[in-house]
């Protein structure tokens, strides 16, 4: 299969993923974009969003909390400060985080900085829950 592209997800804690896949779909700040092998060199900021990759018939998901994607013809490198594969997400933890974030938003409605931080936390929690649901083997 010459048409595969290598996907690497790098976080400060570890190399989360290094795999040859058919398609990678990332959530950029300007919307989703898909990458196939032979893509032009490309650099994009990523939003808090999901990362999808398909290898053969299997599609896998990961949650990415912002960062960057660097694309060269044969490789996609995702640099994120936090990222998890769907099957590794702790759903209970994400739910608790969502509740915490909602409380903080309610409290911090007046203060701009605190509000945007809480909002980002909420987005991350929701994303993890969404991705965890999708990544369930039964789904």
């Amino acid at each position, binding site marked *: 299969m010459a048409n595969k592209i290598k996907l690497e997800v790098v976080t*400060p804690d570890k190399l989360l993923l290094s795999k040859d896949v058919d398609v990678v779909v990332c959530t950029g700040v300007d919307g989703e974009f898909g990458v196939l092998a032979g893509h032009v*060199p*490309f*650099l*994009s*900021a990523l939003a808090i969003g999901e990362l999808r990759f398909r290898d053969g018939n299997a599609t896998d998901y990961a949650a990415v909390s912002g960062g960057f994607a*660097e694309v060269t013809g044969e490789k996609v490198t995702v*640099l994120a*400060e936090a990222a998890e594969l769907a099957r590794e997400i702790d759903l209970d933890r994400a739910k608790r985080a969502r509740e915490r974030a909602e409380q903080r938003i309610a409290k911090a409605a007046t203060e701009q900085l605190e509000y945007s931080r809480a909002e980002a936390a909420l987005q991350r929690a929701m994303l993890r829950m969404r991705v965890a649901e999708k990544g369930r083997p039964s789904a």
Partner: protein
Amino acid sequence: MAALRDIKNKISAVKKTRQITRAMNMVAAAKLRGVQEKAERFKPYAGKFADVLRSVSAGVDPEIHPLLAQPESVETVALILLTADRGLCGSFNMNLITKAERFIKEQTQAGRQVLLYTVGRKGRDYFRRRKVEIAQDLSGVMNVVDFDLAVQVARLGLNAFLGGQAQEVHLIYSRFASMASFVPTAEKMLPISPEAAAEGEAGGASEYLIEPSAEEILVDLLPRYINVRVYNALLQTATSEQAARMAAMDNATKNCKEMINNLTLLYNKARQSAITAELMDIVGGAEALKQG
């Protein structure tokens, strides 16, 4: 006889101390491995990050971002001092603190105010005892060094800088040069010097399509760059701490061993002379009986 028992007690006390120092040595060794592993896992991220930063910052006007703006005059400098939470690691903490004191002195002489932030209990305790004002401290955190901690520490600096309380932010940490050499190092963290951001060959930007734009990515990238640098400094400090503790505890164990040897010698001598004295008594008594 009392002296004999005293020596014996002392020997057992030193033996217990040796057991403790030996255990601490092993704990430090295990922790050192853990931190080194973390540093190893961080390397790919740091390396890739530097690559991306280089290709983005090439050809971008450095004036566009507040973190790059060089201040016209510097009145207040923020200093973030990284130390350990615990002692018993030789001169490790003291070296860092001395470096910080020298830095504060230099800045004060230059007519600047210093805003002190401490990370790690030892630095906080030292300056608190000397009634030096500490703007904010994070202590009890060096046990688990992770990226979240780096983000917290970086935020201290970023808030001071962006909030206008300080025009420069410096960081003092322990650079891990080798297992036996840790260099207290002071680095200017903010504003980011343009050379640091653009080091390496220029002209990489043209090779990429960049979305949304190089400028906008840079806005996102630079605060993260601070996180990366702080995390690196934290990891090196933690590595140095554990290595320093290993060395200190190894020395302590050796000293205990020496002390035990000396005390055992003393004990044997004392025992010998007690036996001799007793023998003399018995012989003297027997002689007296024979004569009677």
